[in-house]
């Protein structure tokens, strides 16, 4: 195929992402799992890149977690989302950016449902008015926060203090990218690269000097799957998913995993501990695990923020071997010190998985 033809086909997989003026909605669970990620997204976009990103303390969960867990009907989730749109309208914004992949999937699904069934949208408008006397406009553009970081990846690379490179050998780090299922598997045209070639994370890795590795189960679910994990009787399926992914990526010796979903880094990180306790197996080098990061954490590392300010001490799998490989300085003594030097307590050590 001629080059121009390839370019034309590839352009169909692209997504329009406005450069500025976004209304930001946080995830309901990310701040518990990876507490600094959202803060550093705002720090990077607002303070470092000078973008206008607005958030309000009045927004709530999008209801996606309850919807996907079968505890609320879609109409309820739609009314919750309609309220977020109303907040966006009141703040004077037209572009909505979500922190969470499931929120992104939920918003996308709702907007597509309203497009197909306008009468449902009218009913939700009525519900919202009855519930809280608010009116909303649909966003002109909807993006996930990783879309924005993908868009700004070259600007971030130009300000980088460290690259995803082994600083001793100069070899690029071997990076596994894992994209949340709700990003583009449900509505392929809403994600950069579609469902077949999602490049939102691999684009960042390429720009920041790493080498993306391909492996057979690359697009397999991380294992969260909501009901697979939330119902204890199904948890064996959840960990079986994660186990399958790690068994598949192990021969390629990844240095790190980068993710863009709240559940994926949590499960890929914590299940490594559970697998090590169940089977005595670890997947990193010398008894360590493979460190798992959110894209904000990776961007923060590349930009030279302190690893403990980025919340990397909250990970189950030790990040120190990777920091040493990248040449990122860190102080082991301040690892478990919070704000103002306050002790945040040390976790107990696993029996098999090596931690620092």
């Amino acid at each position, binding site marked *: 195929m001629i080059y121009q033809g390839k370019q034309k086909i590839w352009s169909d997989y692209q997504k329009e992402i406005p450069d500025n003026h976004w209304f930001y909605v946080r995830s309901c669970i990310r701040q518990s799992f990876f507490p600094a990620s959202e803060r550093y997204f705002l720090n990077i976009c607002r303070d470092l890149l000078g973008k206008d990103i607005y958030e309000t303390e009045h927004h709530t969960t999008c209801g996606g977690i309850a919807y996907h867990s079968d505890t609320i009907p879609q109409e309820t989730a739609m009314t919750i989302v309609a309220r977020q749109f109303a907040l966006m309208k009141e703040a004077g914004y037209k572009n909505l950016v979500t922190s969470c992949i499931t929120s992104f999937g939920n918003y996308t699904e709702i907007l597509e449902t309203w497009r197909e069934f306008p009468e449902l949208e009218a009913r939700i408008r009525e519900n919202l008015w009855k519930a809280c006397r608010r009116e909303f406009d649909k966003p002109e553009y909807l993006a996930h926060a990783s879309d924005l970081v993908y868009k700004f990846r070259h600007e971030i690379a130009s300000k980088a203090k460290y690259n995803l490179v082994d600083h001793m050998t100069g070899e690029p780090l071997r990076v596994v990218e894992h994209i949340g299922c709700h990003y583009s598997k449900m509505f392929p045209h809403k994600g950069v690269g579609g469902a077949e070639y999602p490049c939102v994370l691999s684009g960042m890795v390429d720009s920041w000097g790493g080498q993306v590795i391909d492996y057979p189960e690359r697009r397999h679910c991380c294992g969260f799957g909501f009901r697979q994990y939330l119902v*204890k*009787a199904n*948890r*064996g*399926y959840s*960990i*079986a998913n994660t*186990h*399958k992914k790690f068994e598949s990526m192990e021969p390629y010796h990844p240095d790190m995993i980068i993710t863009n979903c709240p559940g994926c880094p949590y499960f890929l990180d914590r299940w490594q501990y*559970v*697998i090590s*306790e*169940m*089977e*005595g197996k670890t997947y990193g080098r010398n008894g360590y695990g493979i460190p798992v990061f959110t894209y904000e954490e990776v961007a923060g590392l590349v930009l030279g923020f302190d690893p403990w300010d980025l919340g990397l001490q909250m990970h189950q799998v030790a990040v120190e071997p990777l920091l040493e490989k990248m040449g990122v300085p860190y102080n082991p003594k301040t690892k478990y010190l919070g704000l103002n030097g306050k002790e945040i307590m040390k976790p107990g050590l696993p*029996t098999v998985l090596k931690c620092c």
Partner: protein
Amino acid sequence: MMDFGFSISPSSTMNLDKVDLTLYDRLCSIEPDARKCMACGSCSATCTAGPWTGMSVRKVLLDIQRGKDKEAAAMLKGCMLCGKCTMVCPRGINTRHLILSLCRIYGEDAK
């Protein structure tokens, strides 16, 4: 090892390139119509024994195509040979005869 109250569920993946299709090939040599099945499930839907015994001609054929001979043989025991499945098959497969042929193959193997 630590007990978390759950364990890693075993994989149900099967490698179709490595499945033993000897029995399916033997069935097709006796009953060439077996290849006509499109797994529509009309036979299963109409099966009198199905709701109580789990019998399903569609599943029996799928099991044999996947090399799961034991599961297929166990399911065949539920068949009453009433022939209703033959009457509804949109491909005109004589499913009753096919079941008898399968029983014969399994019977020969058991000897």
